[in-house]
């Protein structure tokens, strides 16, 4: 756990974003965006609506291709890779809504979160090989334990689409935990979440950090950023205008002008 004893700014970088640019029509949605996510660190990505946060996430996770720029994750260039190949490297992202697989059971959702893709061959499924069945049983056991951790055991056989909004958020975190990711990118994890559940989600973020993962959180809830993120990156009009610990940004005039000034402080 040596990484955690080093101050966040001095840790080696897990994710290095350099000069990302993308335009839609005439609009430069992301414009020379650069920032670094250190190992085992939670970085809050904030900024007013339209600042380009979600687009930046799409570029990093491969769902959109940038016009220019580089994204390096643990020495590996991600630009040009397919989303699923990026995910295989241990980078898992979420979307603004929970995006559960609605017709699958809650436990099945967690099982798809898990790695171990060799369980999922078509021939193994058609002919029900012994090896596949054993691997599946082990995965199920791990899945049940994860659901226990997130308080979803009673719902394990329910269709995920029938869960409440908050339960879907918890399932999303159970799914992420199942993937044992190295880098997690969360797009507004607090959307539609009540304060009690918010604390639970915050703890889930910290527990990912405790396991050595890095986390990027796009979030409008600044209290959440202040409470659970080690560093903050502020974007405005597609570019990064400030970064550092939350407290160092309170009085930054550019940040105040771009963002804090015209947003109610929750």
């Amino acid at each position, binding site marked *: 756990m040596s990484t955690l004893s080093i101050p966040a700014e001095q840790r080696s970088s897990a994710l290095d974003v350099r000069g990302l640019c993308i335009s839609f029509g005439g609009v430069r949605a992301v414009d020379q965006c650069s920032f670094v996510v250190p190992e085992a660190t939670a970085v809050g990505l904030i900024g007013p609506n339209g600042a380009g946060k979600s687009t930046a996430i799409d570029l990093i996770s491969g769902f959109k291709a940038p016009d220019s720029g580089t994204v390096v994750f643990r020495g590996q260039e991600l630009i040009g890779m397919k989303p699923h190949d990026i995910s*295989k490297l241990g980078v898992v992202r979420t979307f603004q809504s929970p995006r559960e697989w609605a017709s699958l059971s809650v436990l099945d959702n967690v099982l798809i979160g898990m790695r171990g893709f060799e369980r999922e061959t078509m021939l*193994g499924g*058609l002919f029900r090989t012994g090896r596949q069945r054993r691997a599946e049983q082990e995965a199920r056991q791990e899945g049940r334990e994860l659901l226990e951790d997130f308080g979803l055991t009673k719902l394990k056989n329910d269709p995920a689409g029938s869960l409440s909004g908050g339960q879907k958020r918890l399932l999303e975190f159970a799914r992420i935990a199942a993937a044992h990711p190295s880098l997690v990118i969360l797009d507004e994890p607090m959307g539609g979440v009540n304060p009690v559940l918010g604390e639970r989600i915050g703890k889930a973020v910290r527990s990912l950090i405790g396991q050595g993962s890095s986390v990027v959180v796009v979030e409008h809830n600044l209290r959440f950023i202040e409470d659970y993120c080690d560093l903050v990156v502020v974007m405005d009009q597609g570019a990064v205008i400030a970064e550092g610990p939350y407290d160092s940004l309170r009085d930054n005039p550019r940040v105040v002008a771009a963002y804090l000034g015209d947003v109610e402080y929750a």
Partner: protein
Amino acid sequence: MIYWVAILTEACIFAIMALGLNVVWGMSGDFDLGYYGYVALSTYLTIVLTVGQPLAPVKYILGNNLPYVVAVAIAVIITVLVATVVGMVALRGLRAIYFALTTLGAVSVLYVVVQTYTPLFNGFNGVAGLVDPMGNALGIDYNQYRYFLLGLCAAVLLVVAVLTSRLSRSPFGRLLRAVRDDEDAVAAFGRSVYKTKLKAYLLGAVLAAIAGGLFAAFLGAFNPSAWAPQEVLTLYAGVLVGGRGNIKGVIAGVLVVYIGFVELTRSLPEIAGHPEFAPALRQVLIGLLIILFLRFRPQGLIPERLSVDKGPSAGAGSADTSYRRTGLAALAGKAGRLRLTKASGGVR
């Protein structure tokens, strides 16, 4: 009696096709409008691979004298190769309606080429001459052969039903359903959506081609008036009525649609001077059936079931839950999401 043997044989063959379509549409969620083209291609190939060289003016390719089983195997391989090409084009980055249109285009091309390019499968007159394959070798006479063929088709259906229900419950089946529900989320968790869909698509084509091989033995002859791309809608009716994603449901649906609608409407009284009335009415009734099921029972007669985990720490009250999927919403879901993404893309 022989009449009902024939109908049951046909129902078994259509059930195999429907189980293949159920993998592609029911589990993987791809609305494939070209599916019937694979059945037709395999039927043609099985015939031209078994009946020997054509006698002028009849023309067709191949014209081998292969044993029936070998011919079906080759027909399956060729059909899957064609499906690979179509699948690689249609499944890469094309979602929902665009995928459907591409497959519809592919099957329309096949249909027109088969009709107009005579050297392929003798154009509109089609190919013929496959009489009771394996009958001589096994020493079965004409009347017994009808029962033998029914038994063969039923046996193949049984094997296909067992294998596809295993697949449905397997981790691969789960992955297919996840792709059907939300493919971006599947990609975010490290699975190639394209490869997963392509595998399911090719398995569907294998089953279509096997059904086509049996169809060749059942019909003995095949020409463009015996099939049309829109036959696939009747298959969709079977899958939808029975229960999308549920193997037993799909078989039940085929029985209802084929025996209930296609065969029983044959016994409708004929209106003098309008011989085309009954066949037209049949199509209307099948269309009506699709609409009524989509509206009032989209989950079908026997709905898809969730996998139930019976392992330790099972929660109280977590009994087997059958549930309702809104069929129209499921059809529209992916297109709807696409629209949302596009709308937000421009504003940022």
